[in-house]
């Protein structure tokens, strides 16, 4: 990142087990952590992360904790056109080939997460976009992005209802 005309490099250590854990089995995650799997899916849909695979989910069998990391493809495409990106993602979940979406086989657990997302306060979204404007997002698009995220938050349930084809193993009603 840039600060005061200097470039700084940093790395994030996701190895909460000490070293990198092996890739997870999405099927096992869905079977063992169904509720959390929906939580991850709903979160990724909210932030439009189309890059969730078995290498950026970690399951520590010792502590039985699941962690997700790597959201570099979420929200806006780096260097891409904001208007085009938002337009392309408005009506879909923007999950890509989400590894958990391919395995989840029930809707139980989905609604509570959507309700939780609805509880996200306006100031939180506004603060996040404001922070984003401090590291690359054009400030003149701030209001547009805030509005987009609030709308996505409020209508995420409808978005899921319209896009259940993203979950091939969920029985059709």
């Amino acid at each position, binding site marked *: 990142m840039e600060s005061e005309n200097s470039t700084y490099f940093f790395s994030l250590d996701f190895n909460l*087990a*000490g*070293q990198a*854990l*092996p890739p997870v089995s999405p099927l096992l995650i869905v079977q063992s952590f169904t509720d959390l799997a929906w939580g991850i899916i709903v979160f990724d849909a909210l932030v439009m992360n189309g890059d969730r695979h078995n290498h950026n989910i970690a399951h*520590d069998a010792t502590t039985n904790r699941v962690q997700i990391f790597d959201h570099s493809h979420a929200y806006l495409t780096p260097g891409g056109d904001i208007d085009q990106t938002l337009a392309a993602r408005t009506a879909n979940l923007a999950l890509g080939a989400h590894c958990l979406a391919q395995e989840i086989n029930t809707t139980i657990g989905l609604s509570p997460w959507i309700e939780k997302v609805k509880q996200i306060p306006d100031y939180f979204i506004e603060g996040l976009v404001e922070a984003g404007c401090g590291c690359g997002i054009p400030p003149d698009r701030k209001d547009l992005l805030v509005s987009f995220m609030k709308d996505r938050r409020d209508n995420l349930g409808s978005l899921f209802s319209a896009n259940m084809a993203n979950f091939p193993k969920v029985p059709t009603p």
Partner: protein
Amino acid sequence: MTKYWIAKYIEDPMRNEPRNIGIFVEHNGVRAARFVGEREDGTFDARKLGNKFTFPNVYTQWRTYWRREMFAGWDALASTKTANYFVELGGEVSDVGADTADEVCSFLFHLLIGGGAIDAYNWNIDEDGNVALATEITATLDHLQLLENERALFARHPVVKERPVAGHHVTHTPSFSQRNGRLYVFDHIDLNGTRPTKIKERAGLLGYMFSDIRAAEKDLQAYSLVRPSTENASDAIDYAKKVLGSESSVVNWLDENARGAFLEERRKVADAA
């Protein structure tokens, strides 16, 4: 065709010193694996890990992952790389006879991860001749003050015993080596052994060791110090001579002139700037 893959572990990515920790084998369509911490029957005993891993719980999860995924395909295993754990193609094994995948796997595990060639070939059962030859070579080098020890103050580049040397695929421990810019590696073989198979196996191992080290260090100079057979030539001895002759200079340790020339060269290498 029999192929094998090696699971590797790097304790500290900054030092980048991979260690072999597991073997996968595919032999006639049958897959087998063996990992550090497993008994011969495949059961896992965490006590066998000792202090090999800073985070043993992470290793046990990788072992579980590899055992689960090994039947899905090698490409997926080999493409899953992290800074600490990864899998590499080891190579192919020929002349496995009637051995099963499990037997080949066990052999490779002992050779590349366990106790080395002695374990893999069970040489500890019939090793007297080679031990005696090694003892004799050691005593000669020591007498000439060519061997590194606590009182060796004269040789600038002494011969060292059993120092690990990195090959292209694995790290070897030749009986003797010497380095003065160029690397010299020498090992011994007694061709008077009672088991022709053991002679062929040891010659094959030494040939592979020289070849693998040479693949990593192009200018390697390798020597096979041989105590020739007192009996008539046999297929095993012919085989051994051909294998060793193709990968190293063969020195007849009982030939006074050949031995003298070899030792004189060791002296020059040891004393050179």
